[in-house]
Structures are given as structure tokens and as C-alpha cells.
């Protein structure tokens, strides 16, 4: 079969699969007319309204207000989802700015292609694996078709309704609103890995990584935490607090992306010339720090959807606490990184300050709804330290080349964020009657009298998340690299992946600085006797 025939064959198979799952029932609500009824009035707390025959007018009124409440939640969920979608712009600027001009087109193309490919894979299978058994979400007035879960009671491991947004009658307004919000979260994990594999990964290997991420690694762990799976049920099964709690995804999204990035960066190895013979790291300065700052600010703006939107509804007024906590942690992380680099290296480091801001955002993502503002600041401060020491550790000790700091920002700070729930959750949210993960109590951490139960659940969560995301990626790509060239050739890497992988360069009208080829060792045609950077200090001109 030639390539064209393969594409046709794959399209036909996909279409057959689509029709196979396209059956409808009366339980789903594809038009939206039946979603939001009297029983959805917030005042009812979900209890059905009992209406006497003489109260027909009252019944209509109750239905109308119930529909209104659900409508407000839909708008909130969709708008915050659009904000999360905008984070892709931030990631594209961030990682492209942190890499060299000769790879800028490659970086942008990875951002673009990850979006479209991962989206279709998640639509086909990922969403069903993750949320096929999530059960009705009260804030959306239903999503009842998503009720198929494998593993009974508290041992759920995978869901299976919602393939192609059709199977199990999942063609439903609530399900699709939920899908939009969740697919952009998955995309975020997909962008994270780009930062760590930049400037050397082959485009083909990257596509495979995105398919594996969107179809398997992200949704399965996401199901354990958010889809009714075993980690979220540690409260009901082992009496560990409210089970593992991750409000908006420090673990589910960020640590998962970070651990996949770690495995890929280890398998790929460092960029040519990154480490000198004596093991010291060479600096490959990013080509546009303006992009880095713009990207960071766009991401911060998008995070105003990422965290507050994770209530799935604006009728939950905790959204203001979530939003303010998120900003506080971002600022604290940035200030710590700025001050630390200034104290240690003599000048504040621009890109590390950006990393510090993102570190605070990543860390507060899990606890943002459960902690007080003071704790958000502390969590952000700790995250600022975690990221600067994380980058140093990977560069100087582990010798793992992470051009954009993705592993430190998302992996290490994601881990810290999940743990911080078990320490700082203050027992004010949610109301005990509502409960979390099927346990009717507010989420409470060690420092607020919750004991070690919640922290225990969080520790199990980070352990399981690491083993799953890192382990599966490592195993799969150890196999994949036997069949697919996962790294570009040295010639392409030195000349730039723009030219070698796409035959198009991002900046055709500019001559690239000679330093863009710095650090190339003699075996690849570089300087046979590189001079150590001199220690002379001079005035800058």
C-alpha cells in the first residue's frame, strides 16, 4: 500500500467505527431542552421537587429556574474551557522563545500538531477511558450516559462509555460541555512534553507520543483521579480522608505531562553539546525571551479558566477563592525565583522568573479550592524553590537535558501541589453535606486537624501517578525506538530541525547568529578544542 492508500484505509476504518457506535436513545439529551429542571434548582440540593396538581404554575417556575442555573453553569464551563484553550498560545510562545531560532518552526509545528492529533484521539477513545463512568455531574444537570465503569465499587480502573462521543448514548449536551472542558485539559498535558524533548525529537516520534498520551496514559490515570477510579475512592475504601484529591490537575495534568517528559528526555538523551566533557552544562540561550514572558502571562490568564472552571459551574461561589489563590501562588513563585537567581547568580534570570511563576501556578492547581489565601502564598513560595533547585538538579546532577524546564515546572511542582492538599486543606470546602469523592466531609489536611489520612491518600496518588506515567512511557518508547527514528540525525540537529524536518525555516529573512551552533563537539564537526568561558568580567557595552 502506498501512503495515499493507507490514509484512505484509515479513514474508512474510522468512519465504520463511528457508525458502529452511533446509536441513540431517549436517555441522552442532544437538544438540551430537557437538561435543567426543577430538581436542578440549587435550593433543592438535588432532591426532586414534589408538586401538587394545583401548583402547576409553581412547577413551571421551578423548572425555569432550574434550567437557568444549569445554563449559567454551562456558560461558565465553556468560557473557562475557551480560556484553557488559549493556554496553547502561551505554551507555543514559551517553548519557542526558550529554544534556538533554527528550531522555532519545529517548536510551533509541534504545538499545532499536538493539538489536532491529540484532540481526535481523545475524542475517539481517551474521553471514554477517562470519564466513561464518571456518573452524573450535578452542576451540569446530568451527564448520566457516562455510567460504564470497569472495576466495581471503589476499584474502578477504566471507563467505557463515550467512545466517539456516541457510545452509551453519550450524544448529550451535558456530556459535550464536559468533553470540551476536559479535552483542553488533556491538550495541556500534551503541550508540556514539548519543552523537555525540544530541539532533537523527531516529528514522527512526537506524534506517537501525543497519540499514546491522549489515548492511554493521560486518560487512564485521569480516570483513577477524576473518573470515579480507585485513587479517588481511597476515602471510602481505606478511610484515607476524602480519597486522593486533585482539584484542577497538579497531578492529573501537570505531573503526568512532566513524568512523560522526563521519560522521553531520558530516552532521547541530551542535545548535542549540552554537556561538556567534564559534565558541566553548556547554556543554549533561548532566542526570544520576549516570547517567554508573553507566553507566561498568557498561561497565567488561561489559568483563570483552568482552576476556577474546575468547579464545573458558576453556582459554586468558591470560584472567587480559587481564582485569588491561583494568582497569589503565581506571584509568590515568580518572586522567589527572581530573588533566588539574583542572589545566587548576580542578576535576576528572566526565564527562571517565568518558570517560577508557572511553578506557583502548577502547584496551586490541586489545592486551589481547599486552602486559604495564606496557604496559597506558602505553596507558591515552596514551588519557586522547587523549580530553581529542580532545574539545577537536572542540569548538574542528573544530566537530563530539559531545554524549557518542563520536568521541574510540571513534574516536580505538580508533585508538590498534590502533596500540599494533604498539608494545607483547611476544612472549609466543600460543605460536608455535599462531600468530595463520596465522603461526606470537607477536605482537611494535616495542618488543620485532618490528621495523616488525607496526606496518605495524596502520597499514594503521586506514587501511582509517577509509576504509571513514567513507567508506561519508558516501556513504550523503549520499544518504539527500535522501529521509529525517535531522534533527528546529528546533521539535522546541528543545522536546525526547521530545515531538516520541514524544509522550511521560521525566519528565512535573517542570518542566524554563529553562536546558534555553539557547543558542537569535534565528532560532529565542531570546535576540537573548545575554550572554557573566561572568568573575566567587564562592563557591558
Amino acid at each position: 500500500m502506498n501512503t495515499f492508500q493507507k490514509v484512505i484505509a484509515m479513514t474508512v476504518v474510522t468512519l465504520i467505527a463511528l457508525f458502529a457506535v452511533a446509536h441513540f436513545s431517549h436517555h441522552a439529551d442532544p437538544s438540551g431542552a430537557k437538561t435543567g429542571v426543577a430538581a436542578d434548582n440549587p435550593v433543592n440540593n438535588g432532591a426532586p421537587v414534589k408538586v401538587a396538581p394545583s401548583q402547576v404554575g409553581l412547577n413551571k417556575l421551578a423548572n425555569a429556574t432550574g434550567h437557568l442555573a444549569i445554563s449559567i453553569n454551562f456558560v461558565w464551563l465553556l468560557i473557562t474551557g475557551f480560556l484553557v484553550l488559549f493556554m496553547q498560545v502561551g505554551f507555543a510562545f514559551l517553548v519557542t522563545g526558550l529554544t534556538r531560532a533554527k528550531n522555532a518552526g519545529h517548536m510551533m509545528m509541534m504545538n499545532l500538531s499536538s493539538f489536532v492529533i491529540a484532540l481526535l484521539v481523545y475524542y475517539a477513545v481517551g474521553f471514554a477511558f477517562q470519564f466513561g463512568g464518571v456518573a452524573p455531574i450535578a452542576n451540569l444537570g446530568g451527564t448520566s450516559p457516562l455510567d460504564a465503569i470497569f472495576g466495581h465499587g471503589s476499584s474502578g480502573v477504566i471507563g467505557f462509555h463515550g467512545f466517539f462521543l456516541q457510545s452509551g448514548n453519550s450524544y448529550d449536551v451535558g456530556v459535550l460541555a464536559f468533553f470540551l472542558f476536559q479535552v483542553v485539559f488533556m491538550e495541556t498535558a500534551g503541550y508540556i512534553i514539548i519543552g523537555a524533548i525540544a530541539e532533537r525529537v523527531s516529528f514522527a516520534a512526537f506524534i506517537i507520543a501525543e497519540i499514546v498520551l491522549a489515548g492511554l496514559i493521560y486518560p487512564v490515570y485521569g480516570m483513577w483521579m477524576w473518573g470515579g477510579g480507585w485513587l479517588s475512592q481511597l476515602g471510602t475504601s481505606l478511610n484515607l480522608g476524602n480519597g486522593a484529591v486533585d482539584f484542577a490537575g497538579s497531578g492529573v495534568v501537570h505531573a503526568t505531562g512532566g513524568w512523560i517528559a522526563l521519560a522521553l528526555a531520558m530516552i532521547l538523551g541530551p542535545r548535542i553539546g549540552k554537556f561538556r566533557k567534564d559534565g558541566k552544562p553548556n547554556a543554549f540561550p533561548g532566542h526570544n525571551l520576549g516570547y517567554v514572558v508573553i507566553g507566561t502571562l498568557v498561561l497565567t490568564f488561561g489559568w483563570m479558566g483552568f482552576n476556577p472552571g474546575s468547579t464545573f459551574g458558576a453556582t459554586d461561589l468558591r470560584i472567587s477563592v480559587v481564582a485569588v489563590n491561583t494568582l497569589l501562588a503565581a506571584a509568590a513563585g515568580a518572586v522567589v525565583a527572581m530573588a533566588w537567581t539574583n542572589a545566587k547568580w548576580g542578576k535576576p534570570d528572566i526565564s527562571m522568573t517565568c518558570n517560577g511563576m508557572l511553578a506557583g501556578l502548577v502547584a496551586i492547581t490541586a489545592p486551589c479550592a481547599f486552602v486559604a489565601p495564606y496557604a496559597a502564598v506558602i505553596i507558591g513560595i515552596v514551588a519557586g524553590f522547587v523549580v530553581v533547585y529542580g532545574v539545577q538538579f537536572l542540569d548538574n546532577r542528573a544530566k537530563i537535558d530539559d531545554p524549557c524546564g518542563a520536568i521541574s515546572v510540571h513534574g516536580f511542582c505538580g508533585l508538590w501541589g498534590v502533596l500540599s492538599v494533604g498539608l494545607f486543606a483547611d476544612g472549609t470546602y466543600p460543605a460536608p453535606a455535599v462531600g468530595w469523592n463520596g465522603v461526606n466531609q470537607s477536605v482537611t489536611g494535616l495542618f488543620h486537624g485532618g490528621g495523616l489520612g488525607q496526606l496518605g491518600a495524596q502520597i499514594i496518588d503521586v506514587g501511582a501517578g509517577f509509576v504509571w506515567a513514567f513507567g508506561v512511557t519508558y516501556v513504550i518508547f523503549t520499544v518504539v525506538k527500535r522501529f521509529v527514528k525517535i531522534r533527528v540525525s546529528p546533521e539535522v540537529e546541528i543545522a536546525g530541525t526547521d530545515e531538516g524536518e520541514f524544509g522550511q525555516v521560521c525566519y528565512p529573512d535573517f542570518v542566524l547568529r554563529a553562536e546558534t551552533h555553539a557547543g558542537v563537539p569535534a565528532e560532529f564537526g565542531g570546535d576540537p578544542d573548545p575554550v572554557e568561558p573566561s572568568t573575566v568580567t567587564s562592563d557591558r557595552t
Partner: protein
Amino acid sequence: MKIVIAIIKPFKLEPVTDALRALDVSGITLSEVRGHGRQRGHTEVYRGAEYEVAYLPKVRLEVVVDDADVEKVANTIMDAARTGKIGDGKLWIQPIETLMRIRTGEAGRDAL
């Protein structure tokens, strides 16, 4: 006829231009270049890793002048470009064999 070539700090371009205009010098060519002198650049830290900034941004000016004006022009550039600190740059003077104006074909002093 001589060509005066000066490598100066970029922020000194404006005072040098003003001073040359005051002398009624009309033809100036500018290139943005990078280079180093005895200092051989300096090191910076990027995300914790040291790297060498060997070539610093400079501006290269070229002015063609009549023999009689060479000394005056050279001294004017040096006075205007001097800060007294490391990195002020270099200036040198070379003889010119022929000078031609492309539009009219005039040669020698007429082409100035």
C-alpha cells in the same frame, strides 16, 4: 582621498553623527557588527549555566573624506565616541585609490 573606519559603541552613534554633520560631512555608511577587543567578551549565566558572550554588539562607521579633512574627521569621531571605559572601540584610516559616484559617473573629489 581617505576612508575613515570607526568601530564604536552603539549608543555613541547619535553624538558621532551629530558631530560629523557639524563638520559638514555628508556621506556616512553604517553597519551593525559584533566583535571584541583585548577583553575578549565576557561570561553570563543562563538558567544556571555559564556561557561566553564573545562578540559584543558594535557599530561600524565608514566615512570617505578629502585628504585635508582626515585628521579633523578622525579626531571628531574619537572625541564624540569616547567614554574612557573598556570597549570604546577602534578607528583606522586607509587610502582610497578611486572614488566614483554611481548615478553620474563623476570621479575623485567631485564624487565626494
